[in-house]
């Protein structure tokens, strides 16, 4: 792994040297801000309406009306913007030929892949950190339940990291950034919606399809539970595509 930091450092510099990182962070935060504002306004509205019915009042809380929908919406926005973070990683280096020099420095292939991957994860963390003001506002408005919040953010981080590893693998297959972004979006969407078909296929296939689906594994996290099986799904998903990316780089060498 020696040398991963050099690649990591360069990738971070790369994110900020082209407008992509700003565009991704900007649109993610703008959309999340919009959803946050809409949810809080909705909460405001129904709280007013329920003011004189204690029964209804009990069922309205910050977690159900604001936090959970917000996190679900942010997950969908991640689906759209994560491919834009990874489309450059390998495609650009292949197109401009810079990968040839990178692969002749004393840095192993795994270190190159990990350096690039961790830089994208770092960007994801920066983007998610941009939503901290929402949480502060919630704290000013009331007492949000910490459990669903932590589990929800963990879910977003795991989901985003999984998209990033998938995107990086696809980027290592093509020289074209647009192709990379679109294919990543398509593949990620497929993993996202996979379990929609579970209800009308044979039972044993349904179980497999459910297990592969991202949405299915996000459900409990969204409820505030942190099950090991769901965590391991995302970790394995990520590890698998990181492994595939390393292999893809190796194949590139053979063809080179």
């Amino acid at each position, binding site marked *: 792994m020696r040398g991963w930091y050099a690649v990591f450092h360069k990738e971070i510099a790369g994110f900020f040297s082209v407008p992509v990182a700003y565009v991704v962070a900007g649109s993610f935060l703008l959309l999340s801000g919009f959803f946050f504002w809409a949810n809080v306004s909705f909460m405001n509205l129904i709280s007013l309406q329920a003011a004189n019915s204690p029964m209804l009042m009990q069922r309205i809380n910050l977690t159900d009306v604001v936090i959970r929908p917000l996190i679900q919406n942010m997950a969908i926005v991640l689906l759209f913007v994560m491919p834009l973070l990874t489309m450059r990683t390998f495609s650009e280096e292949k197109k401009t030929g810079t990968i040839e020099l990178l692969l002749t420095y*004393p840095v192993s292939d795994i270190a190159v892949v990990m350096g690039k991957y961790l830089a994208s994860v770092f960007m994801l963390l920066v983007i998610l950190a941009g939503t901290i003001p929402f949480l502060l506002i919630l704290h000013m408005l009331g007492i949000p339940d910490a459990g669903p919040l932590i589990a929800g953010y963990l879910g977003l981080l795991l989901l985003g990291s999984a998209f990033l590893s998938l995107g990086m693998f696809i980027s290592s297959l093509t020289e074209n950034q647009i192709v990379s972004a679109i294919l990543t979006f398509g593949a990620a969407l497929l993993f996202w919606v996979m379990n929609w078909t579970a209800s009308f296929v044979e039972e044993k296939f349904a179980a497999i399809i459910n297990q592969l689906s991202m949405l299915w594994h996000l459900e409990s996290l969204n409820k505030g539970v942190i099950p090991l099986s769901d965590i391991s799904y995302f970790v394995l998903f990520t590890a698998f595509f990181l492994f595939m990316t390393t292999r893809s780089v190796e194949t590139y*060498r053979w*063809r080179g």
Partner: protein
Amino acid sequence: MIEVKRLTKYYGRLSAIQNVSFQVQSGEIVGFLGPNGAGKTTTMRILTCFSPASSGEARILGMDVRDDSLKIRQKVGYLPENVPIYSWMRVTPYLEFVARSKGIPRSKRTEEIQRVSDAVGLNGVRNRIIHALSKGYRQRVGLAQALIGDPPILILDEPTIGLDPRQIREIRELIKGFAHNRTVILSSHILPEVSQVCDRVIIINKGSIVAEDSPSNLARRHGKASRCRIAIKGPEQDVKALLTGMTEVVAVESTGPAAEGEVRLLVESEPETNACPAISRAVVAKGWDLLELSPIHVSLEDVFIDLVTEESTDDRPADSSPAKEQNT
């Protein structure tokens, strides 16, 4: 220092190089010469551990490129063709990245970058963005990144391609300058460059080595015949008859128009014999004026063209194993 044995590389079914073997001694400057697509880049990519060979063995400093790839990469500075460097970076951060990648400790990084910048003359442009640099400076940045970490071996693929004559001269001087304590392999299809810089030339065509020697030896050994250019004031018919009648002379042909009463000829004689003294004596004995008599030295270019075209005329129709050089 560098030992290559029966190296072969296939791209799919096409072979880029077949059974290439050569050795490079420590401190030598070796030029790879060959037409585009001959396999120069492929060989260099194998030596720099970018791409593995299909078969054969390549050892650098006694280490195999397959087994000790990471160690070899510490010892080899590489400048690929077209200088693929990150054009969105500024020069200093780029060199910092290279130093970090090559594992130069943090405390020595600034010093190392200063050293290579001085060596290639980058000090005026250290804060510029690379894509705003002229091609000559870009090339210097490319050389600087190869020099970081002070590698004992430099592999330079077409280091002067696309530069103007003045820049070519500057880059050539730079290469000569830092070659004195290093082993350098450089490729080129520009002949003067190779003959001026290199101790030894390896001519490679269609994936195989066709000749290997010092530039002057190559010219001597492969020169088909020695020739000289002469201009004589005298009757054309008689002059030609005299020269063709001489034993040393193989062929006589007229070159271009001459002034009234003069004859200009190109005389070809047996290799290794110099016909000039005999010709001058004969001409003077006839009472004609000898205006010009100059031997033509066979240049590396002639040797190269001979070797490369010889190969292709030996071949059956043009389709046989077109070697492919990938530049992506």
